[in-house]
């Protein structure tokens, strides 16, 4: 279908983008890579009055080393995130998770910032941002603010980004040397994750010294499996990993849908967490 008519502006700075959102009022919408928005517009599930195309704002484009963290512009494409040497070295989990998002064509256009701002419960990257303790820089009419991941994801498709705000960048604390693995379960090649488990671990000899575990699609917003993380410290065997992973579904609120009922999702969370941790730890 053809989208309903809208106006279009293409700012070249973040300030211009915020001004355009303010001028556009409530029905103005940021256009990132368009890979979630375009299907919505084509199916006429949304009809914004004006699209503020942020894809040509230089400030949103870079990946930089900020000492203790890697800062990724909201407008960096999935393809560039996945292939970045900085990301692969310091935030390996994000690179691995991003490689599983959609297909090549969509990864060439879709952006990290768009995926995080969209906050689809089945999206692959939000959990990783949560578990790694990412911080989000958001620009609005009152200036810029920084929001921790624990406050960024609010609910289904809802984040801390207001209607007149632009997500500028996401800062990921460095985890160089940590093993990383993502396990994602789906039935067909193009499907979104029914459940996903992302794990990254710091090894000390053959023992897990620290772990971060994120779950995809186990509730309205991403889940960090903190009970599993704590139980993994000091573990050096597959049996130990399985015992820790048995807690993966603790405290989660997965939905039931045509793909899986909540109990099956809980089962998947435990199995996928065990596999992801074992692969990340090389155990």
């Amino acid at each position: 279908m053809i989208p309903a008519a809208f106006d279009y502006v293409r700012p070249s700075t973040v300030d211009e983008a915020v001004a355009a959102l303010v001028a556009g009022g409530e029905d103005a919408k940021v256009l990132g890579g368009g890979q979630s928005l375009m299907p919505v517009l084509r199916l006429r599930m949304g009809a914004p009055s004006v699209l503020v195309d942020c894809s040509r704002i230089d400030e949103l484009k870079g990946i930089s080393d900020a000492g203790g963290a890697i800062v990724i512009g909201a407008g960096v494409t999935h393809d560039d995130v996945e292939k970045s040497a900085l990301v692969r070295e310091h935030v390996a989990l994000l690179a691995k998770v991003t490689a599983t998002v959609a297909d090549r064509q969509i990864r060439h256009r879709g952006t990290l910032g768009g995926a995080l701002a969209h906050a689809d419960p089945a999206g692959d990257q939000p959990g990783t941002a949560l578990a790694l303790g990412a911080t989000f820089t958001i620009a609005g009419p009152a200036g810029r603010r920084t929001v921790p991941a624990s406050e960024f994801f609010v609910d289904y498709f809802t984040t801390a980004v207001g209607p007149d705000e632009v997500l500028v960048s996401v800062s990921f604390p460095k985890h160089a040397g940590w093993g990383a693995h993502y396990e994602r379960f789906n039935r067909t090649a193009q499907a979104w994750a029914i459940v996903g488990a992302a794990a990254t671990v710091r090894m000390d000899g053959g023992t897990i010294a620290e772990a971060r575990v994120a779950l995809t699609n186990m509730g309205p917003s991403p889940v960090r499996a903190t009970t599993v993380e704590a139980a993994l410290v000091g573990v050096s065997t597959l049996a130990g990993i399985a015992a820790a992973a048995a807690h993966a579904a603790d405290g989660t609120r997965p939905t039931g849908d045509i793909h899986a009922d909540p109990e099956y999702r809980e089962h998947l969370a435990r199995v996928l967490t065990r596999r992801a941790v074992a692969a990340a730890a090389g155990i």
Partner: protein
Amino acid sequence: MPHHISVTVDGTSYEADVEPRQLLVHWLRDDLGRVGTVVGCDTSNCGACTVLMDGRSIKSCSVLAVQADGSEITTIQGLATGDEWHPVQAAFKECHGLQCGYCTPGMVLATVDLLAENPNPTEEEIRDGLHGNLCRCTGYNNIVKSVQHAAGLMGGTK
């Protein structure tokens, strides 16, 4: 309000005024008459509309024509050199990589993009690399063979 765009399509420069809501695929088909690029879905899934934008594969149903401003687009109609097929086109013909042919423009361009990055892909890499393109006819096996054959024609070792 229409927006002015300058886009190079298959080597020819175009200037046009487009409505913001016009999808790139509709501009190519309806305004430029380049109907080799087709539409197969409303959900950005099928990949039939795949073209190259500045050398990388994209789904032209999921990009606005205004967003293509300043870019270089390659469609299936810009791949051959005169009467000579592009090696990927030749390989699809040789290996019977198509039946009805509806998915083929997208499959061919997705293959060109894949081989540019990975000149000698394994079968698994081919299937993963083309998973944004659906085919309702072939069962994919001959498509995989076509990609392997194209890799050989283009200098890979398979």
